């Protein structure tokens, strides 16, 4: 060991026994790093799912590297590239799907772009206003994998796996129905319209509705569907009744369904069962009449206010409706009459119906004929009545009028003619006319002449009275005035005579005083005479004094 010349006092370091060098612990670090890195790499490779392509008409709102693919709002993939399709009719979106979602990408998987959308049923995709569009996905039932898809232009109304049933409705007009129009059951929203299309021949619409699961069992075989848009206002004896489904249905329309309550609940309808979509609830619940008879009722009065479809009423029960109103101008008749054709549903008359059920059809008809003949003989007539005084609407009433003129139904005519009776308002009119005629007959001229004469004599009489009064005024009044003046003078002198300071009063007072004195001296004389009766003769004596 060479000595350091300038550092003589350097102490010796304490040597340690050499340690056995195993692999330094620091080599653990790269091992850990490789392990972690390797694990991450393996996981990334394992998690790398399939790459799919979706063709859309436009790439509006889509962005490579940013736009996500979501299934039930869960991100399952990212768009990696957007290119024009080779035929330049659309765009091809390439996307990486997460490994975990690989089995969702099958033959009937559907893709669509979620953008903000405002429909009748509501507003959807609000979140995309800020976040930008994303691609929505709905898985399919197929097990065959598929990697190339054609995207939907509008989101599907129904996502797969939603429990419920689909029904077909047949409608004459679409009304306000559109995709997503709600379906109501007892005002509860239970489904929606998923599709509609016009018939091949354009005669009506086929509307497909979907009713969600717990509620589809309320769709029974005799369930009626009707358009629930708008407000149904009914004025009845119990008051004003307003029927609406909901506010949104009022504005946007809707479809409601219900089952007539009278029938025992039948089997729930199978999915896909066709139904008729009625215009109103009333139309939907109208009885379906199988047996129908046609009659014609001939009226001589105006049928203003009577409409086709107006009810035929038997004592409050509607048993039919007016099917046609015509003017019968046939030369066979002597006058112009109104021929009103009626459709009558005899089954609505329970008794007839019961009989009809027991016998076969032909017998039934004859039976009804004899029945009606009997009824007509008893006064069964058709009559026009006013249903509504304000609008003047008429309906045809069938009722018994025992006093009606005899009539008969000619069953050979088709349709047979029911005898009529002028009725209701018409009768009232006749009465009023007869009253008017009677009023007309009153000799108003003569009455007024007499009246004028009476008035004239009265006038004359009043003139006489006037002269009399004037004469009384002129002749009698001065006399009365003089008499009154006399009377006043008399009273004044009487007053003067009786006044306290009048000379007569004073004189009277003095006279009375004199009388009093005379009486006193008389008393003294009397006393003296009593004591000295002789004084009268002898004069008075002194001792006689008391």
């Amino acid at each position: 060991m060479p000595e350091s010349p300038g550092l003589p006092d350097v102490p010796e370091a304490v040597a340690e026994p050499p340690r056995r060098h195993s692999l330094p612990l620091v080599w653990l670090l790269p091992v850990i790093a490789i392990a972690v890195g390797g694990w991450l790499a393996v996981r990334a490779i394992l998690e790398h799912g399939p790459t799919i392509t979706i063709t859309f008409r436009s790439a509006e709102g889509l962005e490579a590297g940013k736009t996500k693919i979501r299934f039930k709002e869960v991100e399952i993939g990212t768009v990696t590239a957007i290119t024009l399709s080779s035929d330049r009719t659309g765009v091809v979106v390439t996307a990486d799907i997460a490994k975990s979602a690989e089995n969702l990408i099958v033959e009937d998987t559907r893709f669509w772009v979620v953008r903000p959308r405002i429909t009748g049923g509501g507003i959807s995709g609000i979140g995309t206003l800020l976040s930008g569009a994303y691609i929505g996905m709905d898985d399919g039932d197929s097990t065959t994998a598929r990697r190339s898809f054609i995207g939907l232009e509008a989101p599907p109304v129904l996502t797969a796996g939603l429990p419920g049933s689909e029904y077909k409705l047949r409608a004459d007009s679409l009304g306000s129905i559109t995709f997503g129009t709600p379906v109501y059951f007892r005002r509860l929203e239970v489904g929606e319209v998923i599709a509609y299309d016009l018939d091949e021949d354009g005669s009506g619409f086929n509307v497909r509705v979907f009713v969600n699961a717990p509620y589809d069992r309320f769709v029974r075989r005799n369930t009626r569907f009707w358009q629930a848009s708008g407000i149904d206002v009914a004025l009845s004896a119990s008051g004003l009744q307003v029927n609406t489904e909901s506010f949104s249905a009022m504005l946007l329309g809707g479809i409601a369904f219900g089952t007539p309550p009278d029938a025992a609940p039948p089997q729930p309808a199978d999915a896909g069962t066709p139904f008729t979509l009625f215009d109103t609830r009333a139309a939907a619940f109208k009885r379906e009449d199988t047996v129908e008879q046609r009659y014609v009722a001939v009226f001589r009065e105006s049928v203003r206010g009577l409409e086709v479809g107006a009810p035929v009423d038997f004592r409050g029960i509607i048993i039919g409706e007016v099917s046609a109103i015509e003017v019968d101008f046939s030369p066979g008749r002597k006058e112009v009459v109104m021929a009103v054709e009626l459709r009558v549903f005899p089954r609505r008359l329970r008794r007839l119906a019961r009989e009809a059920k027991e016998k076969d059809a032909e017998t039934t008809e004859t039976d009804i004929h004899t029945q009606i003949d009997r009824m007509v003989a008893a006064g069964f007539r058709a009559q026009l009545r006013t249903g509504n005084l304000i609008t003047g609407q008429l309906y045809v009433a069938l009722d018994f009028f025992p006093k009606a003129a005899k009539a008969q139904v000619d069953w050979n005519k088709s349709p047979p003619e029911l005898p009529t009776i002028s009725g209701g308002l018409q009768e009232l009119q006749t009465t009023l006319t007869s009253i008017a005629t009677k009023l007309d007959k009153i000799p108003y001229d003569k009455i007024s002449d007499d009246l004028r004469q009476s008035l004239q004599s009265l006038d004359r009489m009043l003139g006489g009275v006037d002269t009399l009064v004037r004469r009384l005024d002129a002749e009698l009044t001065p006399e009365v005035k003089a008499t009154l003046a006399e009377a006043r003078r008399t009273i004044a002198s009487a007053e003067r005579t009786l006044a306290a300071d009048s000379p007569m009063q004073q004189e009277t007072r003095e006279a009375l005083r004199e009388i009093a004195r005379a009486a006193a001296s008389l008393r003294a004389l009397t006393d003296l005479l009593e004591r000295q009766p002789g004084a009268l003769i002898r004069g008075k004596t002194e001792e006689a004094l008391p």
Partner: protein
Amino acid sequence: MTPETTAASAGLAVCHACDLVSRLGRDVHAAHCPRCGASVHLRKPGSIARSWALLITAAVLYVPANVLPIMHTGSLFGAQSDTILSGIVYLWHAGSWDLAVIVFVASIVVPLAKLIALAFLLVSVQRRSTWQPMQRAKLYRAVEFVGKWSMLDVYVVALLATLVHFQSLATITAGTGAVAFGAVVVTTMFAAMAFDPRLIWDPVSEARARRA
């Protein structure tokens, strides 16, 4: 040419704890300070091996640091994950090419350059190369100096992740890439620290002594 005098050639070692100079026997590998008892050595023991280990760790971690996202941005406008490269691409496309260059240099070039430089130094030292010792010493100093500045990305992510926390409005969380990147920077710093620059000069002085 006179032989250079080094502490090692003189058999002297200084205690890093108490600065006492002590004499070290030629074949003594491990010793401790006679005054304070701290271990003393002529050269950092296992310097090359430790440096290699850390360097390899850093190199391995460099891959996930660039491949994995370093930042998850969740906001009303959607969620997004960014890697370092995608951030640079975004900056470049957004027109901030200057920022893009800074981030590219600080986050990709510098760590990579450090890895390469350290590997080069280690190989040259192991081969006892006498080539350009001065340049290599400068390179080492540069590597050591630059080390602390490479954490730029990690700082940015750490700051954002702490500051931006508006629940549903906007949230930024650090991704695994940030952890890996931070680990790359730290391990390269440790690797640089583990490297003993005196080893660059040892073959030079030996050659000189042999020539003399």
